[in-house]
């Protein structure tokens, strides 16, 4: 069952010198209990996509969409008040930096019980009991003492656990995790990924994971969206993206990371050039200026979405029957 369905989402920001077209006409869906990864580089629009869906962007952002349906409701029709009621109760969010996303002036207890008291109308004692239970669920040792502490007294890993506890406090249907482990060390990252996997299995919550780390995506997500220049250039199951990628950008991403189990003598194949300036995005395919298989048509027209299977779709002119046949170099 489709939990979230987004159709033709566009987000732009008017700044002094022009309009930044951060997201350009993307459509996707998330099923119930599914974990979807959005992967892309900085400026590819992956975070803005989810902030647009949540309605968390500042006023100068212009968001248009044909529809954004969450759990059968049309989110574009909701008032700010109704949207706020949804945040934290039906959709939870985990941000990248747990130091700046927790309020330094309030204790863990007051931040953790706030959603429970607002959305679930719990009384103080009841909320406190639930908060303790949540801290145990995210495997924080000595939860009674932790409740009384302030964010600065916790380590990065513990803070991110508190963030996760807040996000799942009201039993949301969907959790959006925006680079949840980027600020953490690798051994702590492993703890947090284990915890998210465990929560997903026990509570059947859908997870949208935004990251630039292909390793994190591979160990967490069953389906992957690859974003570039404000568009989705390829989407598919994890196996399709890692073992049978079709878009030259996906090839480039996979070729530019060394593998922990690969041959260290192997040269990395970087992607030439830099990502496009979204103030003036290229007219055709956003990846055309960096693509080694670029054809004249790529510079003029945005490539259409080619559906390869129920789950796998690519937006690339190379998929046209008359285009030259090229293969990924490995």
């Amino acid at each position, binding site marked *: 069952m489709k939990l979230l369905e987004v159709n033709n989402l566009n987000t732009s920001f008017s700044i002094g010198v022009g309009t930044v077209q951060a997201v350009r006409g993307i459509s996707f869906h998330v099923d119930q209990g599914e974990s979807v990864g959005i992967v892309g580089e900085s400026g590819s629009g992956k975070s803005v996509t989810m902030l647009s869906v949540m309605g968390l962007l500042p006023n100068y952002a212009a968001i248009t969409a044909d529809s954004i349906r969450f759990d059968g409701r049309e989110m574009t029709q909701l008032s700010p008040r109704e949207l706020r009621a949804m945040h934290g109760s039906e959709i939870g969010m985990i941000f990248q930096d747990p130091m700046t996303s927790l309020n330094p002036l309030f204790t863990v207890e007051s931040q953790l019980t706030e959603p429970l008291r607002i959305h679930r109308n719990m009384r103080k004692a009841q909320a406190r009991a639930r908060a303790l239970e949540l801290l145990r669920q995210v495997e924080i040792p000595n939860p009674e003492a932790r409740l009384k502490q302030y964010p600065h007294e916790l380590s990065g890993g513990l803070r991110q656990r508190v963030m996760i506890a807040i996000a799942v406090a009201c039993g949301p249907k969907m959790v959006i995790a925006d680079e949840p482990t980027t600020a953490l*060390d690798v051994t702590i990252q492993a*703890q947090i990924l284990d915890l998210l996997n465990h929560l997903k299995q026990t509570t059947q919550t859908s997870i949208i994971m935004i990251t*630039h780390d292909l*390793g994190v995506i591979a160990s967490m997500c069953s389906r992957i969206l690859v974003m570039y220049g404000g568009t989705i250039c390829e989407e598919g199951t994890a196996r399709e993206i890692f073992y049978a990628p079709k878009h030259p950008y996906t090839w480039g991403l996979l070729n530019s990371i060394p593998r*922990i189990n690969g041959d260290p003598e192997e040269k990395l194949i*970087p992607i*030439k050039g*830099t990502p496009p300036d979204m103030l003036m995005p290229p007219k055709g395919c956003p990846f055309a200026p960096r693509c080694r298989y670029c054809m004249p048509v790529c510079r003029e027209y945005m490539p259409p979405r080619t559906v390869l299977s129920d789950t796998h779709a690519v937006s690339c002119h190379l998929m046209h029957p008359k285009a030259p046949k090229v293969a990924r170099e490995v």
Partner: protein
Amino acid sequence: MAEPLIQVRNLKMYFPVGTSLFAKRRQLKAVDDVSFDLFPGETFGLVGESGCGKTTVGRTLVRLYKPTDGQILYRGEDIAPLDEKAVMPYRRRMQMIFQDPYASLNPRMTVSSIIGEPMRLQGAVQDEITARVAELVEQVGLKKDHLNRYPHEFSGGQRQRIGIARALAMRPEFIVCDEPISALDVSIQAQVINMLEELQDSLGITYLFVSHDLSMVRHISHRVGVMYLGHMVELASAQELYSNMQHPYTQALMSAVPIADPDLAEQSNRIVLQGDVPQPIDPPAGCPFASRCRHCMKACTEKNPEMREVAPGHWVACHLMN
């Protein structure tokens, strides 16, 4: 084997913390008794989690810090006790590339003055500087018309190239690369890594590559040292370390790296460490890793294990090796 370029012996770098007049002065032991050699033309990778002292080792080697104790033998000369003035001649042979290409370039200087500054400080004349700067921008893949621009006009990858050109200006023998790619996007990281490798091939520079990205360290390094809480716990050739790791911390660290391959990720057995890294302020006696180690024995909490060679060139500091 060739003569080592740099021999580090029992290096200690302590920082005082807390300034109470009456309480006993406490010390943050960022680097505590670390020894290793660097050979000419090699890349030595230094890995570990935040706070393990890897950056401090790098900075101390180029004498941005004056070590608390220990020796840094640069071609046999001990540069650890030298004062600022005496260390100056060594500065032209040792350079550094910093982590954050946004913070490490002065926003009010043009690219040509940034790259030329080390030469100016060492007393070169303007004509010489102009010629060398033109040569350097070419070498790092920037264009000549970039020279009169300011850092904010460049992307992260291009800024890192400017930082590398500045480090190359004095034709150094040795460069400390302190997390040079962690602020860059994946597709740009590979560009910078390939460039560092090509520069090493053509100029024979020795690198100390400090990073928390274990797959990248394996890719670029010849030998790798693993640090934990100010101590070197394991040191071996990259191939040996990644295929035959001995220290329990190294094993946990390696298994925690997410593998960019769904099938392998499913099969892998992660050793998930409990708890966090302890504070390096007045650390307890014994092995630094004892509080999180699965194999902790009585000896581990009493005595700090010494580095011993378990195979040729493979050193481990662990009581399990006895």
